[in-house]
């Protein structure tokens, strides 16, 4: 196996005297999609901030094999910029203006958002906003994506559609993804592996490896079985 894209060793984090994460061990291989699920307030967003390098661990290490982009549940787009300008910000600054504009145009056309290029985020639906945010991350050609409850603020049908889109995008151009979610169904539909975190201070309770083929249909018997295992692990069954 090649070197992991992302490796956590003995990772711990505390806000002052309050421990949030304890002794996390995890390696994520290139192209893998790992979902982290856990009870709300267990420190999932803190974990992602550590993985993204936005917080410094109080213990242990996070090793990333490259830059990462994080996608947030809501409010990740800059509300003062148009859709096109937000996506353009995603293109590395070293790229010249013409190439940048071409890349943004390509992406907008591919995502059926061309007619919304000059709209501001508050003028879009929640699903469109998340699609734009995903686009801003994808135009960078960054290999590591960190998704912080990216579809949680959306309605159920839009959520299902967005999961399919994400899976298709990753099939076309594989990237390494860590998805943090409280939505067990989402984790089971999309992930190659699922890390179940315990309550605060969170550590890894168990890791589930799923058979290949994503996105899995919510009605797939394998999905139901995995969901059952996670629910038991979280004491919810």
């Amino acid at each position: 196996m090649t070197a992991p894209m992302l490796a956590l060793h003995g990772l711990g984090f505390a806000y002052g005297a309050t421990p949030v994460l304890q002794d996390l061990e995890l390696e994520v291989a290139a192209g893998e999609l790992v979902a982290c699920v856990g009870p709300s307030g267990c420190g999932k967003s803190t974990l992602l901030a550590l993985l993204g390098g936005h917080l410094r661990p109080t213990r242990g290490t996070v090793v990333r094999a490259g830059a990462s982009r994080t996608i947030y549940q809501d409010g990740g787009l800059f509300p003062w910029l148009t859709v096109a300008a937000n996506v353009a910000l995603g293109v590395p600054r070293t790229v010249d203006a013409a190439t940048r504009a071409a890349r943004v145009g390509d992406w907008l056309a591919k995502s059926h958002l061309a007619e919304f290029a000059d709209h501001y985020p508050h003028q879009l639906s929640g699903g469109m906003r998340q699609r734009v945010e995903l686009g801003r991350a994808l135009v960078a050609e960054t290999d590591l994506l960190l998704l912080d409850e990216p579809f949680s603020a959306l309605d159920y049908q839009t959520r299902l559609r967005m999961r399919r889109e994400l899976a298709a995008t990753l099939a076309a151009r594989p990237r390494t993804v860590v998805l943090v979610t409280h939505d067990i169904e989402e984790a089971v539909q999309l992930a190659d592996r699922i890390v179940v975190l315990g309550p605060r201070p969170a550590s890894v309770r168990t890791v589930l490896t799923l058979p290949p083929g994503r996105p899995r249909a919510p009605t797939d018997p394998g999905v139901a079985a995995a969901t059952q295992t996670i629910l038991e692990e979280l004491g919810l069954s």
Partner: protein
Amino acid sequence: MRPMSARPVPPVLRWVLPLAVGALLLAAWWIASATGQFPRGTVPSPEAVARGFGAEARSGRLVDDIVASLYRVGFGFVGAVLVAVPLGLVLGRFALARAAILPWVNFFRTLSPIAWIPFAIIWFGIGDPPALFIIFLATFFQITLATVGATATVPRVHYRVADDLGLRGAAVLFEVTLPAILPQLMVALRVAIGVAWMVVVAAEMIAVRSGLGFLIIDARNALRMDLVVVGMITIGAIGIALDALFAWLGRAPMMRWGSER
């Protein structure tokens, strides 16, 4: 702007109602004046004020005075914005600098700018500089404070995104913090321009020989109460115009999210 009551006022009435109130006030003033209700020399008649307007406008003095006052407010205010906003952005981002400096910003903010007039004259003599200095002081501290306050409300997510996108240092302040606070900042600037306009009149009563403040003090010295009223009406009208200008600026597309989100 959102209407304050549930039922919006029809657009026509927004013009008709205030004009009707103005006409009513004018009629009351005219009747009281024509029937001799005011002691002699205390309140000029509307006709005298109208004649005063005509004379001042024809001589060109009124326009000169308006230009002089707007010039002082413009330069003093823009100067204050250019220093206060960057300072506020830096104080908003750095807790130590904020702890050290913000109490002093507050201290000076509560000092009436009028209290600085003696120093303004001793330091800058007469003419425009002391007036510009007074306008600067009147707005600088409150714009700084408003910028710091707005900066504190910028969501942390914006900074994390900026970090992912490779923005660093001053680029974060000017490409993230500044646009993020712009809607709030515009509200603060709208208040500040009102204060600057109020203060320019006071400053012009002391150290200069032009401007609407000077017009009023000069008219008082000549007991021309009609011209005092000419000055007052002009100041009020321009104050409303400045406020409307800033309200309009606050509706620019890149700021609209501030009121619609």
